[in-house]
């Protein structure tokens, strides 16, 4: 059973088609790396999955449940979107941590708000809420030690290096336990010296339970960590396959040119 199925996703901005029919599926526990030159639509695709952008056409299925269908007459309301987007997590290129909260609270805030909401909606009693809230801190601390930053839990984002901030952002995205965790060029805003620690953390997350999509320019990472690599060009999936196949025997001319440029560090 596919954990994610993306069917014929199309999106235009101002008459310009940015995604021209994207189709693919993922199995649980798979890591998909998306590569491609800038402007090819990688970010837009991740934003569609996270409901930050609404596709003009196409469908999304998670665990065989249709969570989005552009043909639906019934437009999703804010509450439905919120529930559905929680199937996904997103780690941004620019971290987007909440600067006024310390590291631990950055990680726990969303979960805490969810629990309080559940209580307000009378889904859980006051005692259950208190119990759940008490566990949130431990959960957050656990996630922070997973990304190696437990000792920084009381620091503020501005006191951390870029690599540390991105690791906090990863812990924050994990807190709500998404089915599919997306990364949009997680190391592109970092000094080269700091990319390693972030990529190591991402690799460490790989497990049979966790499905991940990583948009990246780090070819070595894509090759060594990903189960599948997707090469996007001009809004289409130009080529997709196992890393070995993509990197050692690329078929499309565009991919060959892209890999040549990447090798030359362009």
């Amino acid at each position, binding site marked *: 059973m596919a954990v994610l199925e993306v069917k014929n996703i199309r999106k235009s901005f101002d008459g310009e088609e940015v995604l021209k029919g994207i189709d693919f599926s993922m199995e649980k526990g798979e890591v998909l790396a998306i590569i491609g030159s800038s402007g090819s639509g990688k970010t837009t695709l991740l934003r569609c999955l*996270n409901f*930050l952008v609404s596709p003009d056409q196409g469908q999304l299925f998670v665990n065989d449940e249709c969570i989005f269908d552009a043909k639906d007459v019934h437009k999703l309301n804010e509450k439905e979107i919120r529930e559905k987007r929680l199937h996904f997590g997103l780690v941004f290129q*620019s971290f987007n941590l909440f*600067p006024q909260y310390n590291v631990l609270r950055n990680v726990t805030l969303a979960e805490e708000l969810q629990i309080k909401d559940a209580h307000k909606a009378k889904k859980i009693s006051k005692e259950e809420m208190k119990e759940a809230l008490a566990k949130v801190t431990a959960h957050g601390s656990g996630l922070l030690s997973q990304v190696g930053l437990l000792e920084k839990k009381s620091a503020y984002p501005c006191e951390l290096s870029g690599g540390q901030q991105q690791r906090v952002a990863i812990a*924050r995205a994990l807190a709500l336990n998404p089915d599919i965790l997306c990364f949009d060029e997680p190391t592109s805003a970092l000094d080269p010296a700091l990319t390693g620690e972030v990529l190591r953390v991402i690799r460490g997350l790989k497990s049979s339970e966790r499905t991940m999509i990583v948009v990246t320019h780090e070819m070595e990472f894509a090759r060594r960590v990903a189960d599948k690599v997707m090469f996007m060009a001009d809004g289409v999936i130009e080529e997709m396959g196992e890393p070995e196949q993509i990197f050692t025997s690329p078929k499309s001319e565009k991919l060959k040119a892209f890999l040549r440029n990447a090798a030359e560090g362009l």
Partner: protein
Amino acid sequence: MSFIDVTMQLLDGFKVTMLIFFVVLLGALPLGLVITFGSMSKIKPLRWLTRTFVWIIRGTPLMLQIILVFYGPGLIFGAKALPRMTAVLVAFIINYAAYFSEIYRGGIESIPAGQYEAGQVLGMTKRQIFFKVVLFQVIKRIMPAMGNEVITLVKDTSLARVISVVELVKAAQDIVGLRGIIWPIFYIGAFYLLVSGALTLLFNWLEKKMDYYKG
């Protein structure tokens, strides 16, 4: 006239000045937020209307607005005039709310879209994003501008005299004219300095409090 006599005579003016100051703050701070929501609304006519209103309020003298609120209803609609003090408060609150609303809007618009998006992908509601993520950052950013505006308000209260509300300056001027002594003017001058000095300290302290993070 002795210091005590002058002080006793100024007391009512002092009360009026402080009353205007606090009531206007209390009314204009929240009303400003309402105006901000109007001027940032997705509904075009509402946004346009609100921004025009703010432009008019900020583009004309407060003194003129006080006169209009006091005499306008009677002369235009034949309605009963508002009590003088009420007219002053209404005009001030609207005027300061318009200024505050622009400061709020500038602050809100300065928050990067990534902050909203980070909240969204974590399943937060619009309310939660505004109150838990954005609001504090906005408050921190607008604090210096708000400090200026609040200190200006202390001094602007003297405009109330234009419809014969006896605030501190008017009260002092009456003594000067009647008794032929100038020092009450220095006396109230010192008072204004003291209040704006205290407010400056207060805002500096608040800014420091919020300076525990950068950005």
